[in-house]
């Protein structure tokens, strides 16, 4: 079974697999972005979903809609297969990174200190000096120069010669790990959020009302007041909801929620998301028994005419009442300003019983009941979210930036030096650096060479160093 593990491991070390996965994910994301999204509440209700499908058929055509539905493209980001792709990519990243660990570990720690003469002659960046002192003394000087250039130096003394290895920013090599770990953690954070997070992006509370948050909590929210303010030029200036949060009916927090300034209680965040108009409605029987008395949020728009619309049910009468408000900002012939239109349907059959307009403040007898449109009001639309994965995502984001900065701005530099006594008693000092042929490496070698050269000259002013740098 060891072979199987080895094969699986090998499968995941493939960069081609990564490319295929990234390509597939990109395609899915592209599809998910271009195609309409079905709201989660609609998706979980088969009847509502098939209704939704028949509506988008108008946009995409019958056959494409079938295909999109089959592939779950209306809901890509929540599908199993999309998550499976992300999971595979995660494993891929982890395996690839671990696979590189050994090589990186080796380069990050002192390698061979003593290099051959050929290495010094052929290194892409090299320099040579001749000094009038023993190898040990020369090595001390070179070491001092390298230390000044902020290199970490190890030495290895031999017979009439000293070898040195110097490097800086060796931790830079781990930048790759840090940034890939960050990617994995971001994916992990989204999974944690998806599994243990709660959210209701369209939590509506009319002014003066208290509504239960649901989502398995015993919290409820009361909206005291909603305010929308505008600049004199017209654009909106401020949207704010003064709310009270109750837990088991007891007030636990009170405050103002604005766009960009949410309210938090017990890990649950309340964000200002949208707002709208309500129609306060009163419905009585002929005998005067109240059937309904309260605000109806007009949170949707009618398909024709884009009028604000909302509904409520009269359970005892088996009726569903739709309330339609006037179009904003223009003269609406169907629903004049100051009026509300109601359409009454039978809950069981869905048949329209009657439709009429109500003017504000007057009682109307409609279909055997007494309807009053009392006044207009406001509702607030809050987005209620609890996402335990967010913290992981932020930590991962910080790691991503740290990893990238390590990789790009603190590159690992490695340099070897050798101080070797020659038959005439002088010491030959050689420097060699490996690296890409790019202007930053050239500049770095130049910097080190000057540092070391300065130290050498400082001690032996009359001994002009013989410079041999041939950086191609």
């Amino acid at each position, binding site marked *: 079974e060891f072979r199987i593990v080895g094969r699986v491991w090998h499968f995941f070390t493939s*960069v081609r697999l990564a490319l295929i996965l*990234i390509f597939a994910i*990109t395609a899915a*994301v*592209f599809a*998910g*972005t271009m195609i309409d999204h079905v709201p989660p509440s609609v998706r979980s209700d088969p009847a509502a979903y098939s209704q939704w499908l028949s509506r988008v058929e108008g946009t995409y055509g019958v056959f494409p809609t079938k295909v999109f539905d089959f592939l779950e493209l209306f809901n890509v*980001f929540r599908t199993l297969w999309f998550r499976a792709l992300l999971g595979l990519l995660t494993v891929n990243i982890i395996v690839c990174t671990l696979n590189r660990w050994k090589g990186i570990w080796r380069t990050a720690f002192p390698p061979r200190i003593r290099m051959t003469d050929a290495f010094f002659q052929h290194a892409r960046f090299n320099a040579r000096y001749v000094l009038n002192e023993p190898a040990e003394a020369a090595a001390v000087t070179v070491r001092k120069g390298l230390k000044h250039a902020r290199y970490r130096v190890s030495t290895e003394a031999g017979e009439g010669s000293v070898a040195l290895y110097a490097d800086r920013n060796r931790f830079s090599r781990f930048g790759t790990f840090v940034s890939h770990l960050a990617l994995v953690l971001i994916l992990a954070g*989204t999974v944690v959020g998806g599994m243990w997070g709660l*959210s209701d*992006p369209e939590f509506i509370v009319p002014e003066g009302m208290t509504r239960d948050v649901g989502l398995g909590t015993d919290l409820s929210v009361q909206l005291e007041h909603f305010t929308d303010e505008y*600049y004199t*030029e017209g*654009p*909106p*200036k*401020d*949207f704010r909801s003064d709310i009270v949060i109750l837990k088991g009916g007891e007030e636990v927090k009170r405050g103002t929620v*604005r*766009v*960009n*300034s*949410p309210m938090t209680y017990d890990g649950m*965040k309340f*964000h*200002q*998301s949208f707002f709208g108009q309500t129609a306060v409605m009163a419905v009585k029987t002929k005998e005067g028994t109240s059937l309904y008395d309260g605000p109806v949020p007009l949170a949707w728009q009618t398909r024709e005419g884009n009028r604000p619309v909302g509904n409520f049910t009269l359970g005892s009468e088996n009726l569903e009442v739709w309330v339609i408000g006037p179009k904003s900002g223009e003269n609406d012939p169907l629903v004049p300003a100051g009026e509300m239109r109601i359409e009454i349907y039978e809950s069981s059959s869905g048949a329209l019983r009657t439709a009429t307009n109500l003017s504000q403040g007057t009682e109307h007898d409609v279909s055997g009941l007494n309807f009053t449109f009392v006044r207009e009001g406001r509702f607030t639309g809050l*987005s*209620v*979210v609890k*996402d335990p994965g*967010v913290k992981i*995502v*932020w930590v991962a*984001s910080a790691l*991503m*930036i740290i990893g*990238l*900065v390590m990789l*790009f701005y603190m590159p690992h530099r490695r340099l070897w030096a050798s101080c070797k006594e020659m038959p005439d008693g002088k010491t030959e000092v050689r420097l060699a650096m490996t690296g890409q*042929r*790019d*202007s*930053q490496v050239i500049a770095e070698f130049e910097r080190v060479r000057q540092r070391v050269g300065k130290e050498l000259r400082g001690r032996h002013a009359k001994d002009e160093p013989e410079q041999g740098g041939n950086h191609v």
Partner: protein
Amino acid sequence: MFEVSQYTFVAAMVALGVGLALYVINVFGPRGVRALSFNTGGTQESDSFSSAMKTAGRYGTILSVNAFGFLTASLIARWIAAGHGPFSNMHEFSVAFAWGTMGIYLYFEQQYHARSLGLLVLPIALGMLIYASTLPDDMQPLVPALQHEFLLSVHVAVAIGAYGAFAVGFGSSILFLVQQKKSMSWLPERTTLDEIGYRSVMIGFPLMALVIILGAVWAEIAWGRYWSWDPKETASLVTWLIYGGYLHARVIRGWRGERCAYLLLLGFAATMFTYFGNYFLGGLHSYG
């Protein structure tokens, strides 16, 4: 203050336009002169000509540095006049885009002394300024969604840095492909152009990561969701992934040169799509 920002904006545009003309003389001039002196056989004249070319280049740089200075002044004046970072509509974004591109280009010019790069990058900046001048430049107050002074400024400032770096990468890869087709002595060497491209990604890639992260932080505060697959979000992620592909191709596959240059072109196309994306994609970022 508002007038100051308008005047300095126009000054920047003029300085950049004239500067760019001098770059053209500087880069193409010597070849014209060489052709001329070949015909007339006169060397005396061509010497003074080519020193004039050098002067043109120097003044070109001075002018574009000036243009950068004017634009900086314009941004600051507008910042003061508006009372918030001047990053709230397409006019302001475009001015900022030009500013970032010029700043990053000038850094590269100073590092690599390659004015021919400016021939490709500065027109992008000039184009952005001209485009900005066609948009209404009246200052609008911030709508509630944008009312987060710190994040608005940092998010956009980092974004223009990334866009500017990618514009430089675009310029270098075009020059690379030209150089590849027909070797020209007046262009930087191909290895240098390849390196400029890589360095531009070294700057742009982390900045773009930061843009996406800051956007996520902001979205989390404003809407409670750090990621909503909003078109602009998605486009910037795809852009980032393209440059990620470029880095991987270099490190893992050892790609250099031509194929890298094509990746940078693709990356810059994605960048422009991200920038103008809100025009044809809509979404939460449509404040244009």
